[in-house]
């Protein structure tokens, strides 16, 4: 019975229940609840200030929630070390040191995970062959276009093959070609069973990519939102 329950919980995807967050006296997230199954891409849309980035920062364990429960595969957010080994976070900004070349950036972000050298080398080698960045691995990051830098940022976020990928405005500043390459990669990851949550204010892109788009408005999903209605 216990074994069955454990197995059941391990099959659970991302579960968010009654999530609340107040910043500087303003309730940014209000009793937010949704479920996302494993092997799916969900989008969070909404205007600026709707709470998309705050939601992703909480899921990435950057910010502490005021209330609510979050778990993935039965692992709660409060178990920070285990949680962080599950997630890949691609923040809104490029968030990479632009003094480095793309190759050096990959080496740094692989090495900072503390893996043994042999595994690290393998990881970097694999990443450098990634079609997203293979054409410009020797280019300095500051010489890369916005789209190229976004692609590098995504590849860095994919290091460690995370089970839950959190992307905050991943297509911002990316041209059509970059966008198409990134979307193709994300679909592939979904097909391999990865769970992906994308926040963006561009609804068209989300509709084209995601299995479901949740519209965030004033820190909660309106009642008409299908994501909430299902709960």
């Amino acid at each position: 019975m216990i074994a069955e329950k454990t197995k059941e919980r391990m099959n659970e995807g991302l579960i968010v229940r009654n999530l609340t967050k107040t910043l500087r006296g303003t309730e940014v997230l209000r009793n937010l609840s949704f479920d996302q199954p494993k092997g799916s891409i969900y989008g969070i849309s909404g205007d600026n200030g709707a709470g998309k980035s705050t939601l992703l920062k909480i899921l990435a364990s950057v910010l502490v929630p005021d209330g609510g429960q979050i778990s993935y595969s039965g692992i709660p957010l409060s178990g920070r070390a285990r949680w962080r080994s599950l997630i890949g976070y691609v923040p809104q900004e490029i968030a990479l040191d632009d003094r480095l070349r793309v190759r050096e950036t990959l080496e740094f972000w692989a090495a900072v995970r503390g893996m043994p050298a042999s595994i690290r080398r393998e990881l970097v080698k694999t990443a450098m062959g990634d079609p997203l960045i293979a054409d410009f691995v020797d280019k300095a990051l500051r010489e890369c276009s916005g789209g190229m830098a976004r692609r590098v940022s995504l590849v860095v976020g994919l290091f460690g093959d995370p089970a839950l990928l959190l992307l905050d405005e991943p297509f911002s500043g990316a041209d059509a070609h970059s966008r198409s390459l990134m979307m193709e990669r994300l679909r592939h990851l979904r097909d391999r069973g990865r769970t992906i949550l994308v926040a963006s204010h561009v609804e068209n892109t989300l509709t084209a990519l995601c299995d479901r788009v949740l519209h965030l408005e004033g820190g909660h999903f309106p009642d008409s939102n299908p994501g909430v209605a299902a709960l």
Partner: protein
Amino acid sequence: MNGHDRRSSAAAAQREDVATVPVTSRERLRSFLVIFRHDLRTARTGLLAAVLAFTALVALLSPLLKNAENNKPFSADMKLSVSIVDEEDSFFGTLFTEVVKDVQYLDQVHFDTFEKAQERLDRDETILFVTLPPDMFEQTRTGSVRESIQLYLNPRKSMEAASLATLIRQYYFAVDHLYSAVFGYQREYMKLGGDEDESWQQTTKHALNSLSAYFTKHRFVEKGSNPDRTAVFHALSGILILLSFLPALGVLYQTSRLCRTDLENRLTLIAGRISPAVSRVLTGLIWWMVLVFPWLVALRLAAVLKTLLPTALVLAGVYLMAACLMLFVGRANAATVSVYQAGWLIFFALLLFGGIFYPTSLFPVWLRMGAQFTPLHASMQAVFTALTAKGSVSPDRVLLSFWSVPPALVLAFVRVKRRRSRA
């Protein structure tokens, strides 16, 4: 599935048992070393420039300091020669020459003509000469106090000459006032037709007025040592403390620049909060070595310091305290500009109350009492003592200079470890 995806899946399968964030101590150490190497790499150009500049500085300064030390300009038992010019061969001049011959720190006193005294000064035989005018105390008899002696200083020994000239001026005023007090009694006695009591009262009043001129001079003569020597060592101590503090401002800059950015979020999620902070402090420590060590070596070569360890320890304590404090300030929940302003304000306040700009003995008593409990005060005293005592500082003084490190460390640790509740 294309070739890349196959490789990617294979790589993922191969390391299924490997966590994607550092968990074991070994993994954390590896992660820390990567961040530290990266921080060093970004600072390497500045470090290299500083090493070159300071090496050149030491190469230039060492011979100068060595010569200066050989000439013993700061020696406590320095011997000095002066000339006295009294062309009228006055009664006072003869008495004065006899008196100054017994002054310990004067090696030789010449009784010269103006030309001869000038010649000696040019040949560096004397550090100054003083001319006594024939009407030296004339003004005193009329009741006005005016400096009528003339001092000619040796420009090649300006520090010693200025020091001695100050003393001579003080002695001159002292004599002038005493003389006027005694003369005043006689004058009053005659004026009052021999009324002794009234004459004493008037003269006492006059003597007290004269004495009051010295009430504000106690700080200058408080220690009785050569003030210039003290000033030079004070300035050197200040420079060493300042250079020890400077790398902490680099820690402030790096901390504030990264604080609450997505780059920091990304790094923190993988490597945790402590590793980047420790790496920043260690990078600052390397800056500290580059900025401070050449000076210590130069002072060692010049034989001002015979041992480096106590001074180096005290200065390292200054850096550690300052770096921890700046880690704390750098993570404040405020705009970057405000954080920098706060950091600089703390920097200047600590330097001021630590007695780096001015000796705290110049402060009012209440401020002096408060300044003693500021973090840099004990360090400044320890470094100053080290410089005046060839580098030897008692262990309790070194320990005392470290008192502010543990509280600063706790402040920094709590602030760095605290999870964010605000965006």
